[in-house]
């Protein structure tokens, strides 16, 4: 036995759809499902909407909050690095003012360089180059003389631009350096270029110090060709090509989201350094930056899941209790209706009991007297002929037959009240009902007229239910007519699908006001004699059998009841498991 078998509610097995307007059986499982879905939706929809709105709004705010510090970092670093280069350029400018090309020598420049080095450690060497591209003085490690710079690209650029900052390059010792060159030409007689080589480690240190604000972010410098000028933690060593496609057009700080197949989306902030070929870049995978959001989302999901489980639990509990209550109420209602229906049928049959007793006692009395006579004749040695003897015997046999007709008719009455469909000859069923009413009609001089259309088709219906219907309708007719009245019963087919039975009497009739209520339960015009349930139950049974019960009546002239029944069982009305319904009704 599975878990479901253990926990499923009792109504689940009773969920057989049955379109029955009289005894309503719900499809409880469907009601339960719809109620659960409905309640769950109503309970959770606002929560889901609130959660989604909250999530997207929070994501938007978080994104703005995330971008803002990156933008600040890039902007600040841009300013710092720009300031660094401006400072170094100013230093070189200052030195230039004291240099006389004609007097400059390695010793003089060396003194200046030594002082410079004390303050700005990143300076590696200094050289002075005349306007012809010939080195005139040099200060720094090693001794380089008579070097011609005319053909070198940087020399041409500095002559043209006045100031020049080179890309980073690897020196003979393996370290990375860059050049700053300045053209001094205020005096045409003293025109020269002051060039300084500088260690790139200073820049790296500056970047590292600034980037400490956002430890999760990688920070480095690239040149105009996207070559790394300082080493990156994640995207390569110095002087290697950067693998990120960064837009290099503007100097202004920018933030880009770059999709990288291997790492997912990467947030990149970058800005150009004015007067240099450099661009400061900071980058980090978006997931690393949004980890807080992810954590928050995770908490939300957990809270939401717990809320869903709580709501689901409450909904299941409430809906199950609700449907169970409906189911129990229906059970009681169906049981009560069955009892009422059964009681009504018993009452109808009980009403016939007197007639039945009469119909049996009279032939018994004949037998009693005829056999008694026979005994008298024999015991008293009276003369009697063979014909007389046979006559008496025939009378006895005829009376026995009368008794058996009555008992067979009684036994023919279905004792069940559950629905069992079988072929029924409607005229025979009505004749059987009339067996018990024949004598009453005779005594009250009521003319009973039964007209049956030729070749009336048999119908598929329930014998017990139909007996009850016609007992009720014909009993009502007997109640309505005065002694000497007339009851006409007519049976005919309406097309090939329907059979109708008209029970018309010339009795007291029903007033227009009462006619509106005759099918209402507990409505009776018979006073204490009537329960007020007969026609109500009859109406319900006929409907349940897929038929129709119509009534016409004129006060003082009589009433006509027409029962119209389908020839074929209507499958849409009844499931094939009526026995289960019966069992359900009995609880």
């Amino acid at each position, binding site marked *: 036995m599975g878990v479901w078998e253990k926990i499923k509610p009792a109504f689940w097995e009773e969920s057989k759809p049955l379109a029955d307007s009289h005894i309503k059986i719900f499809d409880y499982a469907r009601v339960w499902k719809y109620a659960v879905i409905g309640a769950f939706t109503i309970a959770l929809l606002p929560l889901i909407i609130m959660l989604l709105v909250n999530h997207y709004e929070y994501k938007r705010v978080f994104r703005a909050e995330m971008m803002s510090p990156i933008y600040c970092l890039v902007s600040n670093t841009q300013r710092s690095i720009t300031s660094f280069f401006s400072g170094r350029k100013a230093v070189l400018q200052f030195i230039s003012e004291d240099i006389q090309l004609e007097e400059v020598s390695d010793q003089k420049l060396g003194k200046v360089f030594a002082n410079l080095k004390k303050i700005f450690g990143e300076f590696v060497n200094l050289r002075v180059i005349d306007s012809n591209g010939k080195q005139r003085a040099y200060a720094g490690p090693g001794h380089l003389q008579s070097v011609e710079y005319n053909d070198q690209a940087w020399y041409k650029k500095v002559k043209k631009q006045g100031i020049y900052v080179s890309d980073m390059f690897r020196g003979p010792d393996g370290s990375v350096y860059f050049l700053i060159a300045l053209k001094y030409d205020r005096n045409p007689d003293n025109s020269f270029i002051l060039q300084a080589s500088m260690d790139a480690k200073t820049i790296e240190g500056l970047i590292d110090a600034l980037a400490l604000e956002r430890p999760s972010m990688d920070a480095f410098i690239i040149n105009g060709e996207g070559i790394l000028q300082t080493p990156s933690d994640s995207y390569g060593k110095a002087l290697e090509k950067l693998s990120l496609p960064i837009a290099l057009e503007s100097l202004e700080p920018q933030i880009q989201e770059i999709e990288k197949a291997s790492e997912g989306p990467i947030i990149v902030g970058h800005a150009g350094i004015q007067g240099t070929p450099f661009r400061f870049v900071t980058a980090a995978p978006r997931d690393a930056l949004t980890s807080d959001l992810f954590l928050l989302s995770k908490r939300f999901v957990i809270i939401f899941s717990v809320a869903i489980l709580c709501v689901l639990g409450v909904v299941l509990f409430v809906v199950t209790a609700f449907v169970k209550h409906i189911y129990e109420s229906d059970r009681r209602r169906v049981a009560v209706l069955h009892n009422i229906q059964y009681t009504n049928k018993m009452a109808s049959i009980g009403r016939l009991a007197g007639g039945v007793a009469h119909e049996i006692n009279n032939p018994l009395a*004949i037998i009693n*007297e*005829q056999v008694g006579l026979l005994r*008298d004749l024999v015991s008293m040695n009276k003369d009697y002929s063979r014909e007389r003897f046979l006559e008496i015997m025939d009378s006895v046999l005829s009376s026995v037959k009368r008794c058996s007709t009555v008992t067979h008719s009684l036994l023919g009455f279905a004792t069940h009240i559950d629905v069992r469909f079988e072929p029924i000859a409607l005229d025979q069923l009505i004749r059987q009902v009339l067996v018990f009413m024949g*004598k009453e009609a005779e005594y009250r001089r009521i003319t009973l007229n039964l007209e049956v259309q030729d070749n009336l088709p048999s119908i598929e219906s329930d014998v017990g239910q139909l007996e009850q219907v016609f007992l009720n309708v014909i009993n009502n007719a007997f109640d309505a007519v005065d002694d000497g009245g007339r009851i006409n019963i007519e049976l005919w087919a309406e097309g090939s699908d329907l059979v109708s039975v008209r029970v018309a009497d010339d009795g007291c009739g029903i007033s227009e006001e009462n006619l509106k209520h005759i099918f209402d339960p507990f409505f009776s015009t018979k006073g204490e004699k009537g329960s007020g349930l007969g026609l109500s139950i009859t109406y319900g049974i006929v409907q349940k059998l897929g038929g129709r019960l119509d009534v016409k009546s004129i006060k003082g002239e009589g009433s006509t009841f027409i029962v119209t029944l389908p020839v074929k069982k209507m499958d849409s009305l009844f499931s094939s498991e009526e026995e289960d319904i019966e069992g359900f009704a009995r609880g």
Partner: protein
Amino acid sequence: MRVLLVDDEDEMITALAERLSLRGIEADWVNCGEDAIACVTEKKYDIVVLDVKMPGMSGLETMEQVQKLQPETKVIFLTGHGSASEFNSCIEAGACFYLMKPTDIEVLIEKMKEALKEN
């Protein structure tokens, strides 16, 4: 003792009449209340045995007429129907006995004698 039997069951009433005759009781029989009235009008009876339910006049109606015509005539009801309310109605209306069919003839004769003793 002269008895009039009134019942719509021919075969029963004729046999009963014959059996009473065999026992020395003069018994006439008719099938309905109207015929019974006619008989009572013409002839005096000590006892009238009446069925309750008959086509036409009922047993009670017949008794009423009989008592008007022959107040000293005793009435015994012999019915196949039988109910407490009917019993009460018949006794209250003046019947001596109310018997259920089928009845032993000796019991019926006994009741007739008892009814006559009431005089």
